[in-house]
């Protein structure tokens, strides 16, 4: 089944919003679970598009990377940045 890009992206955003009370960051494979029939690389392309559209952001600890909604969770500004 070919993935309907816009619908799939909406599903990703909905998933993040639903969890936003308890979580602001997600592992990549939280998203692959949403689309069990899709290859991981197809899901990555969607996430990349969402980052390009500035709807989602990467969060990195240096060793591990996660994805989150833009503006969710602790922001650079709260670390005292202008």
């Amino acid at each position, binding site marked *: 089944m070919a993935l309907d890009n816009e619908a799939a992206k909406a599903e990703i955003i909905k998933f993040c919003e639903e969890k936003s009370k308890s979580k602001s960051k997600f*592992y*990549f*494979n939280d998203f*692959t679970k949403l689309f069990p029939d899709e*290859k*991981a*690389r197809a*899901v*990555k392309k969607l*996430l*990349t598009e969402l*980052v*390009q559209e500035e709807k989602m*952001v*990467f*969060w*990195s*600890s*240096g*060793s*591990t*990377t996660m994805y*989150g909604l833009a503006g969710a969770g*602790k*922001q*650079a500004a709260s*670390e*005292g*940045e*202008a």
Partner: protein
Amino acid sequence: MAKHKTPMLDQLESGPWPSFVSDIKQEADSRAKNEKGLDYQIPVDCPDDLLGVLEMSYEDGETHWKHGGIVGVFGYGGGVIGRYCDQPEKFPGVAHFHTVRVAQPNGKWYNSQLLRSLCDIWELRGSGLTNMHGATGDIVFLGTTTPQLEEIFWELTHDLDIDLGGSGSNLRTPATCLGQSRCEYACYDTQELCYNLTQEYQDELHRPAFPYKFKFKFDGCPNGCVAAIARSDLSFIGTWKDEIKIDQEAVAAYVGGEIAPNAGAHADRDWGAFDIQKEVVDLCPSKCISYDGKLTIDNKECVRCMHCINTMPQALRVGDERGCTILCGAKAPILDGPQMGSLLVPFMEVNKDDDYQEIKDLIENIWDWWMEEGKNRERIGETMKRLGMSALIDAAGVPVDARQVQEPRHNPYIFWKAEDVKGGWDRDINEFRTRHQR
């Protein structure tokens, strides 16, 4: 005059080795003087504050750094590691002290102009402190603020033609030895393969989708100058299939003292006459060399330790049928202790003509399996141990080979499937149970 008192750090300078404390103080002085008249883009005293926060950590016995965050350059999921000080009022110069990883040139072939340009960017837009190089091989720029990141990225990519490296759950910057650019032992063109795979997997390098980090390293021969076998999730080590080439005349010249052993590397001291029996034959780990006026090698017993070739490079040369051995799963001791790579493919041709398709197929099979089966923050070496070597071999689509067994009887339980065995078999489980109780 130092901004903070740092008695414990000062003590570190008294040892016999060069000290990073002296280096940081030197940079602090240089920034304070500002002889070049630079318009520093981040606080001028950040090296002083770095020393201050380090001294404080020594006093308290705990770190004052927080790491991680939404810093990076647009569209990249790696290359920048956010770092913040949890005492920003005391040490405003390092309140934000992000690390930038920059991809090193292939085989670390720098010219001085590139080094100068890198330093110029970093003096202006960062702390001036670098780490050449990180464990993965990247150039590491230590300490800058968020507004500088895009500027640094633009200058690196546009002026110097150099990219950010990998960090996070990505393919990390691939690393290679000097290979055929300098070395006669190189069994394949390591730099070409490294460059090709780096370009092919740009998306994996910059957009994280793996359970955890993943490293490639390329060694041209089993001497392993980039230590691929110990440090990379997938190591490509040059090897040969046929026989070590022997020039008996040159062997005689080594024995007769006409050619210095080890290419003269130990010639600064008189070690006495070269003794081929003691220095080569007796040191062969698989005892496959003998010398009775003529050197003989039992090639099928050779374990590629490289000692005889390294000792007598003019007499012995690697074979002609060259390629690479691929090992999987090496890692440092974050969990479970350190682990060396396990042999996955004993020999694979490194074929530029088909754009290394066989190697790329193998890599993608392994990634698909690990992305599916790997837990979050699990290196492939851990997935391999958890699910078994045979699961990896199966997923990689490579033939089972006796050489994949680490040592005999390490694990005697091999479960064959009917389709693995010629002719297969039929078994009626109920009939079996009439003879064997549960």
